[in-house]
Each structure stands twice: as C-alpha cells, then as structure tokens.
C-alpha cells in the first residue's frame, strides 16, 4: 500500500497523487487542513491521518475514504456514491444535499448535517453518526436515512434545535426515547418496533460497529425513535393561485 506524508503538500499536488493512484489503496499521512481531498473523484481508496480540510470528498462519485481522525466542514457535500468512514468527529454541513452513498461518523457531527439529502429509486443515501448531531440535523430532508446513536451521551439530548425542520421525505432515526428539543409540530415522531429496528437500521449499525470496533449490542440497545414528515402537511396548501 502506497503511503505518502502530505503534511507540507499543497492541495493540487495531493489531487494529482490521488489521480495517479487510480483506485489503488493510498494512505495520506499527516493531513494539515488541505481542502477538497477526493473532490469529484470516483473509485478512490483513501486512508487519511491527521486532519483533512473542508469539502473532503465533495461530489464523491464512488470508492472509499477513511479518516483516522477528525474531519472539518462540508464533508461529502453533494456526494453521489461511495463510502466515507470518519473515525472521529465531522464539522458543519456534513453530507449537504447528498444523493447517494454512505457516511459513517464515529464521533459527533456539527450543525446542519444531512441538510436536503435526497433519494431516488434504489439510490438511498445513509448517514450514521455515532455520537451527537448539532442543530438543523436533516433540515429539508427529501429522502434517505439519518441515524444518530448518541453513544456515551445517555442523559443529555443527542440532537440540537430544529431537528428535521421542513423535511418532506426520508427518515431520521435517533437512539433515544426523548423527543428532540422543539421538534416541529409538522413532523411525526414514533418509537420503532424490533421488526423495523432489525430490517431497516440494523445493517447500517452493524457496519458502523464493525468499522469503529464498537459493541454492536450496545449500539442497538435501548429505544429508537423515528422522525418522519406528516403527509397531511403538503406545501400546496400554502398557496392561492392568481392568474
């Protein structure tokens, strides 16, 4: 496996390295905030140490990116396909408008994670966050699945304010039995049964626990709630047409 220390490297040189590797496994050591790593690429097989900068894997179109540490803002912006594993926390605007692929965050995610994520046919994006998520989680959600486990955060809320505001499709699963703070009245919230737990979220949680060496049983333990849009609240009702 090719390993390169990129501590003092500029982002364009890193991009050239990744293109050269052409899908072969590549480890970039000691990232120092370089932006746009793996941006718009497909078929990458990257392992990063240190801290990659903003817009990591934006428009990612396939392959795998693993970060052995924290990531910054706008990770996987408009991601289309592929997998991203972050063995640490991610900054704000994680997976903005993401339309495909899977993201696993071991730690926490900042504000605005999964905003306007959408799905089409069998292309179903997934975000799993092991820790907690900041405010505006899944705002405008238009499809796909967001799971927040809140590991090691048993007493305080695991999401911030405005969870799922304006969402009109997709689902947000939270491992808690508490209603998110100030949950919009336009959204529906219910506890899920074991059947849904097993069939819908278990495969993702299994992948999460394997990747990050967490105890699967512990991750699945306890109550899960799901937040969904209320089909009765159509945007159509807001308008009065004039000619």
């Amino acid at each position, binding site marked *: 496996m090719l390993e390169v220390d990129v501590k003092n490297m500029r982002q364009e040189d890193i991009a050239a390295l990744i293109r050269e590797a052409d899908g072969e496994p590549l480890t970039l050591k000691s990232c120092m905030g370089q932006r746009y790593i793996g941006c718009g690429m497909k078929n990458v097989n990257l392992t990063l140490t240190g801290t990659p900068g903003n817009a990591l894997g934006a428009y990612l179109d396939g392959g795998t990116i693993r970060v052995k540490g924290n990531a910054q803002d*706008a990770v996987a912006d408009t991601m289309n396909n592929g997998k991203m594993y972050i063995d640490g926390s991610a900054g704000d605007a994680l997976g903005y408008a993401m339309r495909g692929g899977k993201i696993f965050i071991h730690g926490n995610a900042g504000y605005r994670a999964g905003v306007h994520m959408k799905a089409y046919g069998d292309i179903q994006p997934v975000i799993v966050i092991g820790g907690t998520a900041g405010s505006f989680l899944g705002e405008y959600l*238009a499809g796909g699945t967001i799971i927040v486990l809140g590991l090691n955060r048993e007493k305080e809320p695991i999401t911030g304010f405005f969870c799922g505001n304006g969402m009109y499709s997709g689902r947000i699963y939270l491992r808690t039995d508490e209603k998110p703070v100030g949950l919009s009245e336009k959204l529906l919230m219910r506890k899920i049964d074991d059947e849904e737990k097993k069939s819908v979220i278990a495969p993702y949680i299994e992948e999460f626990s394997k990747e990050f060496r967490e105890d699967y049983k512990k991750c699945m333990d306890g109550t899960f709630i799901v937040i969904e849009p209320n089909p009765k609240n159509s945007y159509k009702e807001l308008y009065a047409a004039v000619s």
Partner: protein
Amino acid sequence: MRCNLIPSRFKVIRDNEACVSCRICVRECSYGVHSYDEEKKTLKADSTKCVDCQRCVSYCPTGALSIVLNKNTFRPNAEWSCDSLKEIYRQSESGGVLLSSMGSPVKSIPRYFDRILLNASQVTNPSIDPLREPMETKVFIGSRPERIERDERGRIKDNLPPHLELDTPILFSAMSYGAISLNVHKALAMAAKELGTYWNTGEGGLHEDLYKYGDNTIVQVASGRFGVHSRYLSAGAAVEIKIGQGAKPGIGGHLTGAKIIGDVSRTRMVPSGMDAISPAPHHDIYSIEDLRQLVSSIKEATGYLKPVIVKVAAVHNIAPIASGIARSGADIISIDGFRGGTGASPVRIRDNVGIPIEVALASVDQRLREEHIRDRVSIIASGGIHNSADVAKAIALGADAVSIGTAALIALGCHLCASCHTGKCSWGIATQEEELTKRLDPEKGAERLVNLVHAWTREIQEIMGGMGINSIEALRGNRLALRGVDLNEKELQVLGIRYAGE
C-alpha cells in the same frame, strides 16, 4: 346560491356568424374554457377559467374568437384598485400566499431602459455601415489575467483562465427542466449551438438526450442540487452557482409534484409525484468565504477547465455583494434584475423585492472599476431585456453580455398569461403534460430562437455602426454613448450617465 366575489378577468367573445363549430378551440384550450353542447349543438365558453393565453384565438380557423377584458368594474377608487380588492377576496377565502408567474407586471417601477437614449455619430466621427464593413459581435466572458506574462525567451505565456466564447452577446437564461418542457430545452440547446452561444439548464439537471449539446450548455447548481453529479458538472461549458433570481430574491423554489413525472423525476433524481423544494439559501454558503469554497470545489471537481458563474438577484447592496463574488474566485457574475421571469413566485416577492437591472448593473460596474477588479470577472445582465436596444444599453452600462429568458419563451409562443404555475401551459412550454408538450416542435422552436437572436444581432450591429463603434468590446461600459430623459439627478448619478442635451 354561491356568491362569487371575484368576477372573471376576461371575456371570451365568439362571433357566431363566423364560427363553424369545428371545435378546435375545445381541443386547444388546456384550461377547459371551451366546450361543445351536444344537445344544443353549440359551442360554449366559461370565461371564468380563461387566462387569456390566446391559444384558441391563434388557432381559430375563421377568426371567430377574441378575448377581451371583462368590462365589469368595481366602483372606481383612487386608493384601492380593483386588483387590490380581488387579492383580498382571494386571500380571505383561501388563507394562502398569492402565487403567480413570469416577470412583474408592476407599472409603478420605471423601466429605465426606456428612459435611456443611445448616441450616434454625426460629422465629427464617421458612422460605419455594418453591411459593408466588419462589425464584431463576438465576446469572450470569464476572468481576464491581470497582466501579460512572458517566459524566459520573451514569448507571451498563455495564462488565460477558461472562458466562454459567444458569437453574439446574448445567452439564454436558466430555466429548469420541470418548470419548462423537454422540448423547450431541446429548442434552446439546438438554437444555442447554431448561434454560437449558450443555454442554461436551470436547476433541474440535464436530460440524457441533451448531453450532446454540452459545449453550448451552462449547467446550474442551485440550493436543491437537483440532478447534480460529477458527470453533470463536467457536461457543460461552464457551471453556474445560483444564489438567487430576480423574480424572487431571497426565497427558494418549489416545483409541485404534479410536474415531477417521468423523465423530470429521473433527471432531477427525486421520486415521481413528490414536491421538489429548493431551500432559500444554500446551507453550505453562509459567507463569501463559503462561496469561495463552493466555487473552488466545483473547479476542483471539473479539473479547472470550466469558468464558474455566480448568479444573484439584483438587490439593494448588489455592488458590495458583486465585489465579494469577484473575490470568491468566480469568473462570471450573472445579475438578474427585478423584472426577471419565473415559473412560479409569490406575488408579493415578485412585485416588491429587488431593484431594476439597469441601476444594479451600473452600480456594480462602477464599484468593480473603483476597486480595480472589473477584469477579474465578466458580467451577464438579465431581467427585462425586451429587444436589441436594451442589449446595447445594458452593455453600455457595463455588462459583458445579457441573457434572455422571457423573450426566448415569447419567441416560442408564450403570451405571458402568467399561468406557468398551473402546469397547464397551452403553448406546451411550462408544462409536463404530454398532450401539451408535443405542441412545441423543438426544431421549429429552435429556428424561431435563431431568427430572433440573428435579428437582434443585426440590429446591435446597426446601433454600433451608427455610433462609429465596430466591436462589442468598445461598447462595454461606454456610458458616454448613453443619455437619460425623464430621470432625476440621483438616478442619473447611479446610472452614471448624463441628461439628454448635456
């Protein structure tokens, strides 16, 4: 008995002597106005449903039909117009936000283009006859290098950033697949190719069949990011980040599920029948620095081969906003004025938010010049370009090129009935109903668009020739070519032009 507070706006008049009961009107009207009474063997019209799209009038073989304004008048009141009353009736009935489409019909905001006059040469410098002498309408838009660089042997280095090459300074504005039909997109794409200019996908993605027009396509990335993936980003000649549009600055978009069917759903990559919401802001852009990041990530994803356009609505602080955009790494700023059209907009936003393109353009051009960054970006102006004289005036006020949306749709048959949001466009433009979309033949449509832009280009050549100018470059920002009438001193100052006679 049901009381109807809102009388119909139009009346359908049928000349029964001329009418041959062929029922073409019944077939052509998509709003269900005309019907045939089998018992009485006569044609009827329900004027309350009429939007005055003129489809039946245009297709009536005997000219028996006309649509007129309903003469019924509310008691005249200088303070309260008839329309104000109707709006209140409508809202008190439904509780809804008033929704309409196309550009603002508000009269009280001046159309500055109509108060600006162009210059011509007399005696002191010769005018040029474009029929006999070369007249350059080609423009290059994109960022220009700040200085010429030479290699060690003194040869000029090619340090020109990627740019767009237009044979005429007129592009087609962004209109999304979903808001308008695939046939309209086809017509725009074919026309752009023929004309050596560009059309713009809008934010609904690019249909598979149109990837072949990529060299003449601008692909748009808006807050909804519909249909955006790396192949899409690389498919066009440039990528446009849409922040806002003139018809509805500061608010998002909402394409109703009814229009998201079949290929629209596939192209946007959202499930059929589900509403598609474009959030008001891009939630990954909260500052100029964030914008810079999106511009850079798009450049990174497209290998630094394509210029990036940032489109904004003309709003109060447009000059500093444009300055920020110019510093964000964008190559082109597209500014859409108050009168820009749309497939659907809340009426109050459309008619009250933003500023006219003429003043926005002048103040942006001035500001960028003062900051010595005018060459970093090109400017595309839109929102109320009605004819070739408006194009010339916009360029003289500081635009590198203009884009036309409403004018292009009118060329395809649009009659400005402002009913795009109903999805029932009888001209087959702003609809996805198959019966209606097939009314527009893309090849014939393209021909009409080509004719229109050719005609305007010839007129622009005449205008420039009369001024003694032989290239668009020499007209750009040339405000001495303009004079104002019926404008106050402040307006003249903002526009940066003198009064007629000065």
